[in-house]
């Protein structure tokens, strides 16, 4: 009756886990029944979630054992508090201990949960360290970013520390949120209510063209799954000096070529895209056909 593929965007974190990994294979660590909740929110008379907004555990992905975490954007915008961050860190450390091949991070987060102040900040920085430790130990860490809240703040940084990022065009990835930029630099610099501008700047398609993400898919759990399988099987890149130099060079090239431009449309034109204005309406496959030969990054 309903031919529509399940939307990744509209799925909850639990639904994404259930639908993306091999059917029935997910085993949750610290499930809601454990009631490992935030120790801070109660003091603020704020509502808690039984899983503190993140689901972590083990699953099979196309027969391979992987670890997975999915942030629930509906709870406090997916923001990371002490417990939430500890679950991510624990997962990554355990992946090293158990020599798991890959950890998939289904991210959707505004970054640090400000309600928890320093505890939240520390949590996010510990996640960054844990990601890098996992990579150093040979565990591939792959980010999926396709939720409506995007991946911002400290979690944006975490995402860029992972091996690979798979995005949909609905997904967003950045450090500073649009409102923050507007407050700090004025509306002429960045009009946060111009939604088209926000997605042009932080959305999946632009990230793909700039080399910040490695794959772009439609808003479909099935497509995210396929891209995740491919990303896990790609040779895990150890974070070595050569890779850092390469990244630095790419960033330098970006500033040199595009630093004076004020809109992504200009950047896309400079990359050789013939009809930049048509980019937003292309479906994922059409977009990749246009973008792959022209994008930065190349990994």
């Amino acid at each position, binding site marked *: 009756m309903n031919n529509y593929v399940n939307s990744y965007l509209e799925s*909850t974190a*639990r639904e994404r886990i259930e639908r993306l990994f091999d059917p029935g294979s997910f085993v949750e660590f610290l499930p*809601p029944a454990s009631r490992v909740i935030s120790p801070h929110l109660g003091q603020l008379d704020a*509502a808690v979630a*039984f*899983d503190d907004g993140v689901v972590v555990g083990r699953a099979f992905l196309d027969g391979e054992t992987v670890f997975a975490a999915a942030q*629930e954007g*509906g709870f406090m915008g997916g923001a990371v508090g002490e417990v939430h961050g500890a679950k991510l860190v624990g997962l990554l450390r355990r992946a090293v201990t158990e020599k798991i091949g890959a950890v998939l991070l289904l991210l959707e987060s505004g970054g640090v949960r400000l309600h928890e102040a320093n505890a939240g900040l520390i949590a996010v920085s510990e996640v960054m360290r844990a990601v890098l430790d996992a990579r150093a130990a040979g565990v591939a860490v792959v980010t999926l970013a396709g939720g409506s809240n995007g991946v911002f703040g400290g979690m944006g940084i975490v995402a860029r520390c992972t091996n690979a990022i798979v995005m949909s065009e609905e997904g967003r990835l950045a450090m500073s949120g649009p409102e923050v930029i507007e407050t700090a630099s004025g509306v002429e610099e960045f009009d946060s209510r111009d939604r088209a501008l926000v997605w042009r700047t932080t959305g999946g398609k632009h990230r793909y063209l700039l080399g910040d993400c490695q794959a772009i898919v439609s808003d479909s759990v099935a497509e995210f799954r396929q891209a995740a399988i491919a990303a896990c099987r790609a040779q895990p890149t150890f974070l070595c000096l050569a890779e850092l130099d390469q990244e630095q060079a790419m960033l330098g090239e970006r500033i040199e070529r595009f630093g004076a431009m004020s809109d992504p449309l200009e950047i896309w034109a400079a990359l050789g895209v013939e009809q930049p204005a048509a980019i937003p309406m292309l479906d994922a496959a059409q977009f990749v056909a246009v973008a792959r030969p022209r994008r930065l990054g190349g990994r």
Partner: protein
Amino acid sequence: METLTYRFENGTRALPPQPRVVGVVGSGNLEVLIESMPQGGACTVEIKTAAAGFGATWQAVMLDFHERWQLMDASIAINDMGATPAVVSLRLDQAVETMLGALS
């Protein structure tokens, strides 16, 4: 936040052992954790809600829920952020149906 508790005796329908959770703690929404737990046949409900003062409404919703399902040895825990009774009933029914395997 307000905490409300209810207890319904003489349930007849047993639940499988695996706990289940449905819903999200977002505005106008709620999270329902349902577990099988020995309680002398009773079904207990604990609600933590951000919308205070609706005890009578919750009572009526939970009474109807118990009439529908007659759960026994069940513990239900809810984190609520101002969901309407329509959404509450929907989530409760979804939780039980998931538990009973009706959805897979």
